[in-house]
């Protein structure tokens, strides 16, 4: 991936993918326990997600953290909105609110015309 980690590029990633995980390493080979836990949450949710390895470029962490205004990694975005790190993601997986937020946004992404309950 040829990235300059500009706010525009980062915004395009979270606009394009319903679930985005900025993490240290890859889901198969996470380089930090928190990133590993976040990847496991994504995998348990069972929906396709985009994983961005922020160790692939030394510019990535400061750029992402400034853009998102969140100081730690990993960071999870659902329909373009930052939900937080692995602790919040796990909490939201367990209480069902992650699924709720994903499904609610999906209905919105599909474009109007449906109440979401039919």
């Amino acid at each position: 991936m040829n990235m300059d980690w500009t706010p525009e590029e980062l915004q395009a990633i979270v606009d394009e993918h319903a679930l985005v995980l900025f993490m240290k390493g890859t889901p198969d080979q996470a380089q930090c326990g928190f990133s590993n836990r976040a990847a496991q949450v994504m995998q348990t949710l069972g929906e396709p997600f985009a994983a961005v390895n922020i160790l692939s470029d030394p510019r990535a962490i400061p750029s992402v953290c400034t853009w998102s205004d969140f100081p730690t990694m990993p960071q999870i975005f659902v329909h373009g909105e930052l939900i937080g790190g692995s602790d919040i993601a796990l909490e939201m997986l367990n209480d069902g609110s992650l699924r709720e937020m994903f499904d609610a946004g999906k209905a919105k992404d599909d474009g109007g015309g449906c109440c979401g309950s039919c």
Partner: protein
Amino acid sequence: MTEFIDIENASMVTVDSVLTRQVQRRVSAGVVMVSTEWLEAEVHKAVPDADVEVIDLHRSGDHFHVRITSPSFEGMRPLQRQKQVLNHMKQFIPHPVHAIDLKCMTPEQAAVTGDTAFDPHAGGQGVHIRRINRQKEE
């Protein structure tokens, strides 16, 4: 170390000894370590009415599990709660605080929350922590 974190299986003991060596290297390299008391005071600056419990996961002065209980979290989403703390703490991240795992709870949530903390260096496992303050109360 073992008096602080219950290591429940042999593979974690290996992790434990590796971490001890890492801590020794960091100290000899002159890396600044902060105390749980310092972190607790900083968190209080962000959430003055909070009950704050700080656990130094490896006694390395840089990886912390922090439990923050405050009635002011009522009605706030998880990210809003953390941001209130992180907006103050981010000046200390990644140095001297390398990792901070926050649990921001209302008193009602705290009453039903278990004692397990997540340790990012324990092979993705949660570890049971002995919560010293709570044991004193019991």
